């Protein structure tokens, strides 16, 4: 099947929903491709709508969500535009290849779940808005490949979608404000959070930063989490890390330590938490950059060290007709993503306004807040010291930290692409999505952070999603 529209939107999370609604309401014919089975993305992930529900359930879905009324508003407008024939909604499909054509873009898709029965669709569009979002950034640590270790966002997604917990006794570790809602969500769902370990020391940052940046809503969120932590007696330990996940065939505990501001372990501060069945890690987020990179957009390093796309005041990338919104322009959360999505969708619908466009001031405020947040929660400079030579870095191909440092020292492999060819790190099923940042750091060397070139090498994936031979064979021309 193929669909031809004015504007194609990839992703139906906060940015994608907003972009689709804005473009459709400005008069464009829009197609929305999303890997999920229902709108919302990761942030507004909710119980499956396929299960018979009542009106009260839709409100209940909002429990634990921020900006749920924004979602309900965007969703109502999205559904209305779909009924009016302005939006063609293509759920359950992943884009495996995006190409520029003579006068626009072509997206080739494949079902996210083979058994779900969604047929591949080719989407042709004059303009394209990419809103692929992001996922938890990971730093390897001994034992992180044991079952029972989950991405922090994976735990949250599990609870939001399934209404149950993936275990009983949790330790959450890493850095960033996102650890707070994850831990609060676990406790609200009845789980025991033994500790939240934050590698930085963001003492009382949130209210001040939020006020200084002009986004008071963030201070309210912070106060809510503080209340939840107090109510559930969740210990929040700053300048603390998990140095090892304990267990033989599944996680059963963690060894922790206090660290100095650079992330070096302070001797004598080790401590063991036993009887843990789920360990959640999150070190900020990695924007999903493979589609923007494959289309050749100009990129830069953001304050959190992530590779992101450069956009102008109308969210347009360096590629004419290609707009970016949400985490791929810089990790900044859902409120910012919605604002960017609205701007991108409106601009993509009317590519030639004839007058300069002033971006909403709120976008600038939220970007400032995000920058401050990133600076308060850096990836610890000394994190590579936590590894042992036999620590798995690439989970797919089972490549260890020792394999990678050897390739760096003996073979001069300092960027992700060389490391990949010498060690196979990043060559497995996930194509380096999980280990790409860590491998890039290891290639750069102890205490070093990777440059944009190395990260772009990691994000350069010939296929943006695994695809069957049949779909490759069906390519015409």
């Amino acid at each position: 099947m193929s669909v031809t529209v004015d504007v194609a939107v990839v992703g139906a999370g906060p940015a994608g929903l907003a972009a689709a609604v804005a473009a459709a309401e400005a008069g464009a014919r829009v197609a929305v491709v999303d890997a999920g089975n229902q709108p919302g993305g990761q942030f507004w992930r909710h119980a499956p709508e396929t299960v018979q529900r009542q009106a009260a359930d839709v409100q209940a879905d909002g429990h634990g969500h921020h900006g749920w009324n924004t979602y309900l508003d965007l969703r109502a407008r999205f559904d209305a535009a779909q009924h009016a024939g302005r939006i063609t909604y293509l759920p359950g499909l992943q884009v495996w290849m995006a190409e520029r054509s003579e006068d626009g873009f072509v997206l080739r898709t494949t079902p996210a779940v083979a058994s779900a029965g969604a047929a591949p669709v080719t989407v042709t569009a004059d303009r394209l808005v990419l809103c692929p979002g992001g996922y938890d950034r990971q730093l390897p640590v001994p034992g992180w490949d044991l079952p029972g270790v989950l991405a922090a966002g994976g735990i949250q997604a599990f609870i939001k979608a399934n209404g149950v917990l993936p275990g009983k006794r949790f330790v959450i570790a890493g850095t960033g404000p996102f650890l707070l809602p994850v831990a609060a969500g676990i406790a609200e769902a009845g789980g025991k959070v033994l500790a939240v370990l934050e590698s930085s020391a963001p003492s009382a940052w949130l209210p001040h930063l939020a006020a200084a940046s002009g986004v008071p809503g963030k201070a309210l969120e912070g106060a809510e989490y503080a209340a939840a932590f107090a109510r559930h007696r969740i210990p929040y330990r700053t300048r603390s890390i998990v140095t090892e996940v304990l267990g033989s065939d599944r996680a059963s505990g963690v060894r922790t330590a206090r660290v100095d501001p650079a992330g070096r372990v302070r001797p004598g501060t080790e401590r063991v938490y036993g009887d843990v069945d789920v360990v959640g890690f999150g070190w900020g987020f990695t924007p999903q950059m493979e589609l923007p990179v494959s289309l050749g957009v100009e990129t830069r390093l953001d304050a959190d060290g992530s590779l992101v796309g450069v956009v102008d005041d109308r969210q347009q990338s360096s590629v004419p007709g290609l707009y970016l919104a949400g985490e791929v322009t810089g990790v900044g959360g859902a409120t910012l993503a919605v604002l960017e999505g609205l701007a991108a969708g409106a601009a993509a619908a009317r590519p030639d306004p004839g007058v300069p466009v002033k971006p909403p001031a709120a976008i600038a405020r939220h970007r400032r807040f995000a920058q401050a947040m990133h600076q308060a929660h850096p990836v610890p400079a000394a994190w590579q010291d936590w590894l042992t030579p036999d620590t798995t870095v690439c989970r797919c191909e089972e490549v260890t930290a020792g394999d990678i440092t050897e390739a760096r020292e003996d073979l001069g492999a300092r960027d992700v692409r060389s490391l990949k060819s010498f060690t196979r790190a990043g060559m497995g099923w996930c194509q380096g999505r999980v280990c790409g940042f860590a491998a890039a750091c290891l290639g750069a060397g102890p205490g070093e952070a990777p440059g944009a070139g190395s990260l772009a090498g990691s994000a350069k994936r010939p296929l943006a999603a695994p695809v069957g031979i049949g779909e490759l064979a069906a390519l015409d021309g």
Partner: protein
Amino acid sequence: MNPQPVTITFDGRPLTAAAGQSVGAALASQGVTAWRSTRKGGRPRGLFCGIGVCFDCLVTVDGETNQRACLVEVCEGMEVEGS
């Protein structure tokens, strides 16, 4: 919210899940945390990223190999196999 229970099989064993749950959630909430072994080290794997990015949780669903357990929704009679 009380979704209907459905019965699936995991490696031939019957397992009760809630309608709409993911295969990964159905397994994990029954205490099954690993359902795959790695090729090189034979190490156990189950859910990790939980959102379809990492491919650690691959299972065979009704004969279709390499499906992400975190994305596939259970349905009555579904046959799930580890590897």
